[in-house]
């Protein structure tokens, strides 16, 4: 194994997100995931007040387009700079061809392209999921809990041990 630490070896291409992962990672990893308690038990589910949690999503919008155009200015990007990336200059068709067929890794894989498209194209500011998926930058003003961001690291490093498993201790 060539990667054994959080940062990887010097010069390694892969970043390891370990215990120090950012709030954005935490939100992305856990939000809207996990077992959902069903109706049979829901009479006992308490209506707790959840703070609004903002996650970033990809919304193709005029603002996005203008920002990309600004990036063209900002980076002084010219095609000539790209001589070192021959495999990327073949255009969109080439990128698609290289994708190849998805095979043998389970049913969820087939939905990949569709799922990505849905998220990119389907969530405008008026959409039902916006409470949990507002764009962090574009909708910052609406975030009444914005102060939390400034303090995001304040409470994070509490010492916490892992649960143990009896089975392991008995071995």
């Amino acid at each position, binding site marked *: 194994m060539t990667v054994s630490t959080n940062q990887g070896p010097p010069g390694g291409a892969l970043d390891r997100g370990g215990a120090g992962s950012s*709030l954005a990672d935490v939100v992305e990893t856990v939000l809207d995931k996990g077992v959902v308690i069903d*109706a049979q038990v829901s009479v*006992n589910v308490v209506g707790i007040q959840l703070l609004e949690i903002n996650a970033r*999503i*990809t919304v193709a919008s005029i603002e996005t387009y*203008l920002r*990309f155009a600004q990036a063209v200015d900002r980076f002084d990007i010219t095609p000539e700079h790209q001589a070192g*990336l021959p495999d990327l200059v073949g255009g*969109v068709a080439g990128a698609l061809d290289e994708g190849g067929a998805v095979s043998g890794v*389970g049913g969820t894989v087939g939905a990949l392209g569709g799922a990505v498209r849905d998220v990119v194209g389907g969530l405008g500011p008026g959409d039902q999921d916006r409470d949990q998926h507002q764009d962090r930058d574009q909708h910052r003003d609406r975030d009444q809990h914005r102060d939390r961001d400034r303090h995001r690291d304040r409470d994070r490093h509490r010492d916490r041990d892992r649960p143990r498993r009896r089975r392991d201790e008995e071995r």
Partner: protein
Amino acid sequence: MAQETGLFIYGIVPSDVEPTPDAAGVGDPPGEVSAIRHGELAALVSEVSLTEPIGRPADLSAYQELVDGTAAVAPVLPVRFGTVVTGPDAVADLLDAHHDRFAAALDEFEGRIQYTVHGRYDEAKLIGAVLAGDPAAAELAEQVRGHEEAATRAQRIRLGEIISQAVELRREAENRQLVDALGPLVVASAPRAPSNEMDAANAAFLVDQDREDEFVAAVEEYAEQRRELIRTRLLGPLAPYDFVSAHQLTG
């Protein structure tokens, strides 16, 4: 009189799992985590106040650290963040009602762990590649470069749209390549929604723990091959957040 505390459920585990005394839960001060057992199952819970909202960054981190820490030593079914029930009886009812299904799911996750691979394009390099591959985009770039936004708004929108569409197509291809590259090494894979307009790839993988090194080495190779254009990150080991959907209880 309204109830003032409830039980926050973190996850469902085999009954032989027990939290360490210092395991800290959500809330301020952090709740004490305990296990409520029923048959072969246990639920990791802590008491929370119903008058204080939860969802602070510290709450999310506490939830993830507890669930991931558990996943490192035992199979765990994460329960969706924010699930709070009235008390121990409600937890027992939940475990009782779905005992066999939960137990079967835990068996399936025994010795398996989730990793999430997240790649993000270097914006400057990606846009450069798009301009290099699309003469119309390069022409628009010439028209807007150095000119005020107000005067070139239409061209900017068109240029941005071309770039945006190119990113989407590349992202789809990149995700397929990622899943193809790692598929043979994993038990299952699941796509994740892009979280940024510069996302190149985002997918979760369920990995046998005895193939973990092999998997990480393959991700390293994937990252190395793309390092000029994509910053690749590997999150994990994690609880199987993206693989419990098949076990969700739809009622």
